[in-house]
């Protein structure tokens, strides 16, 4: 849990005839992350690159078609390992082209409809700007819209509609009834089209009719007809949308099957891409988690029989500077995943170094609780977290954040019980110390935490523990990577630990005595000055350690490194001091949280009316939950990243991504 999964490198030399079967078996296992085979001359690599990219492009086409359907049909789909026959690429392409054409045909219809919807909307917009009475306008037209009453031979109506189809218009027939073989109509169209439409009307023997005051309902009628036309067009548009969804859904089973076959072919190609080949043999190499290496070895031997040479090597202790870094797979239980995200957000730990996820879970929640200890408010945060978890089940990033919020809510509740605080009020006795009482100056004499200064002291102690833990983790990293010079002489190594412990031991009695008692000079010399004066040793010794064979050490270079060492002394002092003092922000935010709640409580009490007091308290609590909750979350993260991680964390790890069946 405290270190990433142990990795082993497997290198296999097998006969070419086994390549296909080996690919299948290894893909089914899904634990091998390939590394490029470049170390040997006479070996060709990447020969199947074009092939795999063509499969990838086909797969993406299928995914693109499926995404246009009504559901995520590829969710959880894993290609079966028993069917490895690749589909006919040209035939697949033709099938997808045909489907794309069907989709385009529907889209084209939708496009035409959309244009009509927009034009209808434009007419409605212009109609809204029309004066209330038609007879106030010359010839029934505004700047944008013309309303033309008239009549035409009844038999011509449909042909007129057809001729007008290229222009936004509304033709209302029969408002005045039939006059012999002529039909009374009202035509509505855009003024900007009148040049063309007038010509059309002449062609269809249109005769204008005068407006009369009896036509006062015409505008209302036009409005309702345009709206109705709009609704009909929208319904048609929806209909085409549904047709498209049905088309995709009907084909989805076929497409999913196709996707599985293409994916297998793509993965097979990708594997072959990683094979180095000679005339008759293949060579490949990759990383496998140590726990699965035996299974991989067995599979390879069973598949390739005796015609195989197999080599398994341990991952190097320290892969920095290596062209092929060892991939990292963290192995934390699922309940620690939100904290793992926090760590990875900073950087993925380098292979073989400490993965601080479990420790971050403890320090993060400890700091959050100390800054935001309240049973009631914690409960609200917990509920919000749970609701988030329910809502964002399919969104990994938001789900993880919701889980973190739930954890924070739990921490706030625990510390709320310890501090005796619920929604900013002391409803029950504190199990540890009454934070509100201490901030108010009502702390109990003789208790471990009886004043604000005690709270500050408490957080400083937390800081010392966290910084010391950071140093110990750095020593572990140094030992694991066999970096002895850093382990003994670095400012974060044993020497730094000596200096930090000495510094704390010298300052603590001075502070606790009320700044009256200095520690003895001899103690300060051995505890602080001696380790500090040894710090420049490391940069100087590095000159000898890292020099090339036979290279002479120049005095100038030595002096330069000694100067660097002197700067490191200053850095060590300021670094340790600022890191430790930085934890006082935990007290600061905790006190601010309590003070804000006390202020809201007092304002509520002053009102004297529960009808005013309750909303004030609710609002105050809501404000504190949002603002202080956010501050506490950010500050906890900041302290972890900048005061804890900087002491030991080795980042820039490469994530372990094995080739396996699935998306």
């Amino acid at each position, binding site marked *: 849990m405290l270190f990433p999964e142990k990795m082993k490198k497997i290198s296999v030399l097998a006969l070419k005839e086994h390549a296909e079967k080996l690919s299948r078996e290894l893909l089914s296992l899904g634990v091998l992350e390939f590394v490029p085979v470049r170390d040997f001359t006479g070996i060709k690599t990447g020969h199947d690159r074009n092939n795999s990219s063509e499969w990838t492009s086909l797969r993406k*086409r299928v995914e693109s078609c499926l995404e246009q359907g009504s559901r995520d049909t590829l969710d959880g789909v894993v290609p079966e390992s028993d069917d490895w026959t690749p589909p006919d690429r040209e035939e697949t392409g033709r099938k997808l082209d045909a489907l*794309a054409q069907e989709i385009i045909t529907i889209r084209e219809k939708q496009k035409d409809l959309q244009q009509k919807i927009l034009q209808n909307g434009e007419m409605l917009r212009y109609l809204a700007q029309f004066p209330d009475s038609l007879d106030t306008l010359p010839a029934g037209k505004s700047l944008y819209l013309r309303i033309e009453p008239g009549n035409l031979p009844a038999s011509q109506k449909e042909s007129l509609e057809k001729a007008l189809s*290229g222009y936004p218009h509304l033709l209302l027939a029969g408002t005045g009834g039939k006059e012999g073989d002529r039909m009374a109509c009202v035509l509505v169209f855009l003024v900007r089209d009148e040049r063309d439409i007038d010509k059309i009307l002449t062609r269809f023997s249109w005769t204008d009719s005068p407006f009369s005051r009896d036509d006062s309902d015409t505008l209302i009628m036009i409005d309702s007809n345009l709206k109705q036309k709009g609704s009909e067009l929208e319904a048609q548009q929806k209909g085409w949308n549904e047709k498209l969804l049905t088309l995709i859904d009907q084909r989805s089973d076929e497409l999913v099957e196709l996707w599985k076959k293409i994916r297998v072919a793509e993965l097979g190609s990708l594997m072959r891409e990683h094979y180095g080949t000679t005339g008759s043999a293949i060579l490949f190499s990759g990383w496998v988690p140590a726990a699965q290496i035996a299974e991989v070895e067995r599979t390879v031997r069973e598949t390739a029989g005796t015609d195989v040479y197999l080599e398994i090597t341990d991952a190097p202790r320290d892969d920095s500077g290596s062209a092929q870094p060892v991939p990292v797979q963290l192995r934390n239980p699922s309940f620690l995943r939100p904290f793992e995200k926090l760590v990875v957000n900073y950087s993925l730990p380098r292979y073989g170094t400490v993965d601080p996820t479990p420790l971050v879970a403890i320090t993060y929640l400890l700091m959050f609780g100390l800054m935001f200890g309240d049973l009631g408010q914690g409960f609200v945060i917990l509920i919000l977290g749970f609701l988030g978890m329910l809502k964002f089940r399919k969104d990994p990033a938001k789900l993880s954040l919701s889980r973190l919020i739930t954890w924070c809510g739990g921490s706030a509740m625990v510390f709320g019980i310890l501090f005796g605080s619920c929604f900013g009020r002391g409803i029950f006795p504190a199990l540890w110390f009454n934070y509100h009482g201490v901030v108010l100056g009502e702390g109990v004499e003789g208790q471990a935490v009886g004043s604000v200064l005690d709270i500050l002291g408490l957080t400083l102690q937390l800081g010392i523990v966290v910084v010391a833990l950071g140093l110990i983790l750095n020593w572990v990293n140094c030992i694991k990577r066999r970096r002895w010079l850093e382990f003994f002489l670095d400012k974060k190594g044993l020497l730094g630990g000596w200096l930090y412990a000495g510094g704390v031991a010298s300052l603590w009695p001075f502070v606790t005595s009320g700044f009256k008692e200095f520690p003895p000079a001899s103690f300060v010399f051995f505890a602080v000055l001696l380790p500090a004066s040894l710090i420049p040793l490391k940069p100087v010794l590095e000159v000898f350690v890292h020099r090339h064979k036979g290279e002479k050490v120049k005095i100038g270079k030595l002096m330069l490194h000694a100067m660097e060492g002197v700067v490191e002394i200053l850095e060590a002092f300021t670094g340790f001091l600022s890191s430790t003092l930085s934890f006082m922000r935990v007290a600061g935010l905790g006190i601010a949280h309590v003070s804000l709640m006390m202020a809201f409580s007092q304002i509520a009490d002053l009102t004297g009316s529960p009808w005013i007091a309750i909303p004030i308290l609710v609002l105050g609590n809501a404000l504190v939950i949002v603002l202080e909750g956010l501050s506490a979350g950010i500050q906890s993260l900041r302290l972890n990243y900048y005061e804890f991680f900087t002491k030991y964390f080795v980042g820039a790890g490469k994530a372990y991504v094995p080739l396996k069946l699935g998306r």
Partner: protein
Amino acid sequence: MPGLLGDDILHRIEASRSLPEAVQILSGTGFDMVPRVYGKTGDIKSAEMAMFARQVEEERLILKFLPKHALPFFTEWTRRLEVESLKAAFRLWFDHHIRKRSISAQAVYLYREPVIEKIDYDRLLALDDDGAILELVKKTPWKDLLAEQLPIVRERESVFLLEVSLDRFHYHRLLQASRKLLPGDKKTADRLLQTLADEQNLLLAFRLKNFGAEGKDLFLEGGIKVTRTLFNRLVTLEEKDFLAETIRLYPALARNSKGEASLDDLFAWFTSQREHKGRKLISGTPFTIGTPLAYSLIKTLETERLRSLLNARYYRAGEDR
């Protein structure tokens, strides 16, 4: 603020086999309004309009968060989107009133919301009288320019000079606004404006060949590489000599185009230069106008590239049919 697309997605769109597939690639990106609108309407022009609306919305949002001293410059910078709207509106106006063509199919796609100034585009499209148009824009900075240009549009039966004038006027306003910036911001803005002026002058010189002496007046001050003398000479050159001269100015262009530059290469070159400038700005000092400016610049380039890729896909599909 939605993130930028990156080359990978643009390449995938370029390689896609149909418009629906190309559009689908944009799902889950900062341009997810394109698949959303296209999925609902099947209309790529509606999707483009939504894309433009988002761009305006984003830039107006940036304006809300800028400090006072940077506001006038960025307001002018955002005004380039208004220039785009105005150009589109006058192209439609020209087609309708001068060329006497029907614009009903295209007019629905005109972006009518205010970018900086409130302009009644419906009215503008409907009005034929210059005086009425000028009355419509009397409270905007565009009034004098339109008073000068509208008679020219009618006389020459072309909107080209009007479009160039809109760009020039916008550039001058940017220059003026940059003078009020804090020194650090001014340096950033000046560098960008110099590139824009050079680019504008070079492209103008190429397009202005038919305008003779009149075209020479359209030179934009403020560039570094293209001086007025060079501009006046470029206007008179044949295409081959013009491109040779351009390569002399920008040797890297020759490297990109194997020694023979075409006008397409020239456009592509300037696009890449603007993008390069944007990326450089974004990695520069934060807390200057460079960061929002770079975002806006790169986003605009991506939007332009995306629009042309989607259109190419659409028209190619039309040819296939």
